[in-house]
């Protein structure tokens, strides 16, 4: 059976060449303010949070189980609802079509295995995700040593709360791990990119919230 990683590679367009650079990742400071205050309301959903009626989700789970992963040791997530007015405000700056937004928590010892995002929960056709699917992370807590991300060939670390990482969703194989002493909170916002969102991401203005 084909793995989801192999399936995604057909659509990714990534070079998979360790000597090349990654030229369309966006990693920059976009927000400032007290982003941690509301995190005390975080109340994670139980289980994997994946809809197992979806074939791609089942492929993903099966792939990770075959590799030996404990799939219950991945990130936790929560809705960005009225408990989080500041975070809702941040999300409002991301003008996606078919937008989805989650508050995620990666506890110490949690990780996400190396994978591509196919935005399965959006129910969008893979061709549309390939053309316009993007995902953004907004870091809500400062980086601590041991928190690690790799996107393509690019290591991401040493972020400050309010930084944004954005990438064409299916293009970049990526993985994250938290072997630090601190939990990491992020907003994860996804959908089909628009011109106004592109302009927002390219703008260097830092917004105080």
């Amino acid at each position: 059976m084909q793995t989801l990683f192999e399936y995604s590679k057909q659509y990714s367009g990534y070079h998979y060449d360790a000597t090349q650079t990654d030229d369309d990742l966006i990693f920059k400071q976009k927000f400032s303010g007290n982003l941690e205050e509301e995190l005390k309301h975080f109340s994670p959903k139980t289980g994997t949070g994946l809809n197992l009626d979806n074939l791609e989700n089942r492929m993903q789970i099966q792939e990770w189980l075959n590799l030996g992963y404990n799939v219950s040791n991945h990130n936790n997530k929560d809705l960005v609802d009225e408990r989080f007015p500041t975070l809702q405000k941040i999300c409002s700056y991301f003008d996606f079509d078919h937008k989805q937004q989650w508050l995620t928590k990666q506890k110490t010892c949690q990780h996400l295995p190396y994978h591509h995002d196919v935005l399965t929960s959006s129910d969008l056709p893979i061709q549309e995700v390939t053309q316009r699917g993007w995902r953004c992370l907004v870091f809500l807590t400062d980086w601590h040593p041991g928190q690690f991300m790799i996107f393509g060939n690019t290591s991401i670390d040493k972020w400050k709360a309010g930084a944004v990482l954005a990438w064409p969703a299916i293009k970049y194989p990526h993985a994250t791990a938290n072997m630090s002493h601190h939990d990491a909170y992020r907003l994860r916002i996804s959908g089909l990119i628009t011109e106004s969102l592109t302009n927002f991401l390219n703008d260097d203005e830092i917004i105080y919230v």
Partner: protein
Amino acid sequence: MYKNTPKAFTTLASKSEWDFDYTNDTLDPYYFRAPLCRIHGNWDPKKTVVYKEKLTTGETTLAQQNFSGLSLQDRYLEGKVEDSSSWIQEIANAIPFGKSRSLVHIQKPGQMHMLHMDANYGGGFWDYLGDEKDNKIARVMIMLDDWAPGQVMLFGCHHYTKWQKGDVVYFRWQDIPHGTANFGHTNRPLIIVTGEITTEFEKLFNEFKTLNIAVNT
């Protein structure tokens, strides 16, 4: 709310010479050298096997791992070199140490060794070196396979990736906080060698260039 540094870590860190400035991207070569040298050989990394698992029970080691909910067995599969594939001893012997000990670590996808400081080492093995023994023994890792995406090591402020098969990584075990994780798709095998520093090792360390060592496995 989300900070959870174990006391065992801070106690050991207080004895470190390193400045704990994590904002730099590079580490002073006094503390970290990668690669210190490169060992060439025809071994097949996929044939790295640990026949008998070594179980660690040290309190300090445990405290720096299980605060996170992970057990010591979640770090990697560990075995003594003598309880592993026979060709591994030849590779470990390429490092010009005096009296030494070597362990094999196979870190499987999903395994993680949390950020930690190494505790005093040896259980009496090097006590003949006297009170200054910590500065008379050194530690290296020999990477048995090429790096694969999702494998990472943190040494102080530096995330180490993209190593090559045979790379020898030196770090001052008593000073540098470190951790490792494998969230890729393949095993990450290595040998960790700790041994008495010899003039030959000092020469290797002071060369400041990558030396090639051939091993016929």
